[in-house]
């Protein structure tokens, strides 16, 4: 499979402040790729560099085999982007915003837009200033999907959407991906990554600390241990020989003991903080 996104040694700073340092990653065609990290980890900087909003000092980004700087406009024709803040021109009607996005691409997307608006239950007659965050997010989804792009880039897409709409949104992604699209999903919501993504990358302080299949990220020797012994409750990640753990616990008066596979949330905390582990 070809690389739809290829980032090599990307470095972006904001004056003396860190943005992203020496980031390299590749996203394969047809996959849903999760991009995880806490606030300030460099996720948005990476996305904004990919889309040409930021000028980066070092490195190279190729999207759909094209150079992100030299062939910027050509790349954007094939990309559907949904920013974390779904903000549009307040006085415009929803239908006008959707049409403007299609016109700027030189495409007639009315059929696809109508389908998306119906699935998302979006009232196109309202003005943007009358919409809630959730409804603005829906407008953003339509604008990102109506031209059936080869690559979706989503930055915190589900925030503001109710659970039903989140479900519809991810169904739509799966449908487009089944037809050959690729999805780059930056999110805080780890359950979305574990449920929908094939692979994920974890960012910390501007650096990529881990990239792997989602299954592999949760499969490791690390275990979550929940123990109630001698009247005290402990909950921690254990990385080591299970026999040693049992020996250690044998001397205690156990009321309850759970040794489980860690969740993606656990692994994220493990990679991010590394202080909960015993």
């Amino acid at each position: 499979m070809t690389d739809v996104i290829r980032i090599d040694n990307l470095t972006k700073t904001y004056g003396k402040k860190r943005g992203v340092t020496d980031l390299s990653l590749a996203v394969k065609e047809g996959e849903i790729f999760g991009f995880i990290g806490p606030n300030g980890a460099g996720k948005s900087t990476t996305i904004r560099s990919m889309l040409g909003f930021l000028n980066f000092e070092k490195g190279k980004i190729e999207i759909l085999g094209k150079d992100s700087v030299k062939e910027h406009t050509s790349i954007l024709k094939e990309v559907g982007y949904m920013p974390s803040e779904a903000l549009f021109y307040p006085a415009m009607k929803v239908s006008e915003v959707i049409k403007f996005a299609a016109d700027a691409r030189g495409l007639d997307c009315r059929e696809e837009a109508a389908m998306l608006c119906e699935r998302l239950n979006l009232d196109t007659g309202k003005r943007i200033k009358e919409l809630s965050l959730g409804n603005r997010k829906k407008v953003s989804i339509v604008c990102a999907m109506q031209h059936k792009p080869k690559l979706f880039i989503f930055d915190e897409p589900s925030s503001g959407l109710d659970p039903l709409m989140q479900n519809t949104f991810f169904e739509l992604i799966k449908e487009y991906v089944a037809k050959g699209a690729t999805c780059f999903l930056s999110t805080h919501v780890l359950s979305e990554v574990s449920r929908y993504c094939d692979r994920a990358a974890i960012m910390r302080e501007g650096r990529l600390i881990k990239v792997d299949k989602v299954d592999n990220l949760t499969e490791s020797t690390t275990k979550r241990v929940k123990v109630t012994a001698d009247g005290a409750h402990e909950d921690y990640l254990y990385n080591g020989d299970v026999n040693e753990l049992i020996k250690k616990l044998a001397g205690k008066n156990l009321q309850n003991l759970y040794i489980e596979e860690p969740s993606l949330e656990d692994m994220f905390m493990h990679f991010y903080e590394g202080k909960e582990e015993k």
Partner: protein
Amino acid sequence: MITVCKHELKLSFKTLLIWSLSVGLLGLVCILLYTSMEGDMADMADMFSNMGAFSDAFGMSTLSIATLGGFFATEVGTVHGLGSAMFAAILAAVVLSKEEDGHTGEFLYSLPVSRGGAVTAKCLSVLINLVAFTVICGALYVLGFVMLGEEVLWKEILTFLGRMLLMNVEIASVALIISAASSRNRLGAGLGLALIFYAYDLIGRVVPDLKGYLFIGPFSFANASEIFSGKAAPTGSIVLGLIVVAVSVASAYIIYLKKDLAS
């Protein structure tokens, strides 16, 4: 690019109507007031033309306000000059920065629109707005002459409007730099810029030592009294104005293309 330009024109349509009708109708009312003030004007014209620097500043030393042409140049000339300069400055000072200020930049620039293309489209929309403003105001002024049954001074009015348009373009181009460099709307800075240019011209005409430097300001070649009295624009002022436009627009392009867009 055409889509972005049309979009910009749509967004600024109300502003254009409000400003052009306000300035144009004010000018029309001034023209229509001429007949009711004509008798008094004849008596006042001599006094107004002998007020030294004040008369020079408002062009009343070279032109009699007792004539419709003179009255138009001194009254409408000032109203149109200030009003159009403020409109041009307001429009251009926010045309680029409003995308970042309103957080719409991520939407606009995620569409296949290059930043250079967007700047071109936005500059074009400002220019079209300024031309439309001039046409609407000009039509109202001509209507005033027709309503009074006076001969329309086509040559003078067209020269006046053409020079005013060039002055507006020059002020807009300087304000465009402010817009390109800022991620917040700098409406106040734009208005301030227009007023500074106006004040520079006014002071330059009052203070004898500064007269030699008048040509630097954009109001120098758009002085209605000089146009209506057949005087040529200060030497080099129009050429300098065109150079300022070219350099300012080029600077705005460079600044905007190199900057990181705020989210």
